[in-house]
């Protein structure tokens, strides 16, 4: 295995025609991408260009594609459902735009969610407390999601993504539903994680997030290209 955390070779994805006899909608023509260990990559693009779909494919959540996708050297095509689940459980952290916290669980229990599955998380409670501390929410451990602000919910979601200490964090518009000040807090947190050696791939519309990344890519017309207007600052 080389040092790449993410490797895409000729990734293609298309959707069936909406009407009989129509043409398939091509999302990715032949994407190639390599993301090295410890990189912070921001992916920009207009709505509908397939940014979220790309994240789902990278996370093994969407398996309807052609081409080769390797995460930490493992070809996702060759993994069955339990193996993919195990990969997501131990190696990949997900952060979503709409937080996706479970309303029946407290903040701490939401962070502990990965511990419910697979082989669990070693020292789960200690790590969950640590992850909550990392996102500055130690005092909100027992709060239900409905009692938290949008920014707090997103930070709980980030703590959940960090609890298993995965080497790769995939984030889908993590600041999309947050005000500027709260969003900046998330960006700062991602920069800190990057400095600590985590590999991050963040889909974003947020220019500040892109500026914080070490590399910025634009997804347009089914292809990935370097952002001509921005260069990562990190």
């Amino acid at each position, binding site marked *: 295995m080389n040092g790449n955390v993410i490797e895409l070779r000729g990734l293609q994805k298309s959707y069936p025609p909406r009407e009989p006899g129509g043409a398939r909608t091509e999302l990715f023509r032949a994407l190639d991408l390599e993301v090295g260990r410890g990189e912070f990559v921001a992916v920009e693009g207009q709505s509908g260009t397939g940014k*979220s*779909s790309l994240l*789902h494919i990278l*996370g093994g*959540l*969407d398996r309807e594609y052609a081409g080769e996708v390797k995460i930490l050297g493992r070809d996702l095509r060759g993994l069955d*459902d*339990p193996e993919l*689940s*195990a990969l*997501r*459980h*131990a190696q990949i952290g*997900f952060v*979503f735009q709409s937080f*996706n916290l*479970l*309303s*029946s*669980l407290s903040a701490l*229990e939401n962070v502990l*969610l*990965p*511990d*419910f*599955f*697979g082989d*669990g998380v070693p020292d789960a409670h200690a790590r969950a407390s640590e992850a909550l501390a990392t996102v500055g929410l130690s005092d909100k451990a027992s709060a239900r999601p409905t009692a938290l602000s949008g920014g707090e919910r997103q930070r709980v979601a980030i703590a*959940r993504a960090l609890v*298993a200490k995965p080497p790769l964090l995939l984030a889908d518009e993590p600041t999309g539903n947050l005000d500027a000040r709260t969003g900046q807090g998330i960006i700062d947190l991602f920069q800190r994680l990057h400095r600590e050696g985590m590999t991050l791939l963040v889909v974003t519309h947020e220019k500040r997030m892109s500026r914080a990344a070490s590399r910025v890519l634009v997804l347009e017309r089914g292809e990935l290209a370097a952002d001509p207007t921005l260069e990562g600052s990190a």
Partner: protein
Amino acid sequence: MRPARLWRLARGNLARELGALLVSAGGVALGIGCLVFFLAMGRGVRKVVGDVFPVSTREVEVVVPQVGIGSFLGEMKLDEALVARLRALPGVAAAYPRLALRIPAVTRYNGLFFGRELHMGLELVGSGVPADLVAGDARMPFADEGEGKPIPIVLNRRFLEIYNKVFAPQRGLPTLTDTMLVGFQFPVELGRSYVAGKTLPQAYETALVLVGFSDRAPLAGISLPLEAVRRINARFGQDTGSYTSVLLRAQDSQKVSSVAAAVKKMGLELDESERNRALQIGAAVELVTVALSLLATLITALAAVNIAQAFYAEVRERTREIGVMRAVGATRGDVASLLLVEAAATGIAGGVLGVLLAFTGGWAVDALARTALPDFPFKPQSFFVFRGVHILLGMGIAILAALSGAFFPARAAARLDPARALTAE
């Protein structure tokens, strides 16, 4: 996913969806309540039938055919030789000959009867039975002590019940227990009949003493020691060389049919009138119980359909949540297991509620029967016999119904495309 973690996660979901799940559990409770109620009632009613018509599964009553080949070729008699042959049949453990009292007999009682004035004349029907047939039930010696001595008798247990529930209340007589009656002595006139209005020349008076109650004694009549009946019949010039019937006890219930076949092969018949009546009533009770249990099962099946709808709604509502769980490492099996555990918990709750409902229903019916129904012979304290197996069956069906209801929703949840689930509205 480990069971403890699975349960922790399921518990949170159950608490959140408590209202909907209680409705689902309520449906199961209704079905299981009816099922356990009807099963216990069937068992209870069968017990009452068993009390009224006690049937031994090991015994058959052998009689001489009323009309048969034997009638033309010479009278067939249940004599000692034939009894010995019956006793020697394969599978027969014991043979107890019975001899009818072949002369009329009456009792006339004038005096105090447990503190009440009683004036009574009764025609008696009697039969002699071997002492070892009723020895276990007799509380005093059941043996003929010869002329001039009181003759011990045994009555059927049901006789006392009928006396207490019908005869005594109608006549203002005291209610009695078997203990009170054992040792009770009363006069008897042998060779006299009120019904026929005749008295045989050899008629004489003696006394009977009640020594016990037994299910083996015939309901209609009194049971006397075989020797006493033989002696009385001889005194009146009646046949003493043949018996009226022979009770055969098989070595076990499995051998009853082969014994019965061998008896018939010998040209004898089986008196199965009471046995058949008991079996017919038992079968009728069984049939009604099965029908009502099927109805209850149908209610439970409808509850399972309701659970299926509730869980489909759950899956729709929790689609995004399922996507999140898949994103953090849940397998398809984990998702299905989670929903099935929630369903099993719903089933257990429904089962427990159902069993409680059945017990409450049984208690209410018994309470109503105690106050609203008149006292009749063999009226039981309870019409219900709740057995552990009924409760286990009820719980099992409740869980099974809930699991089958949730099976397809759980499978649909497990098959959800995680990427689409995450973007579901």
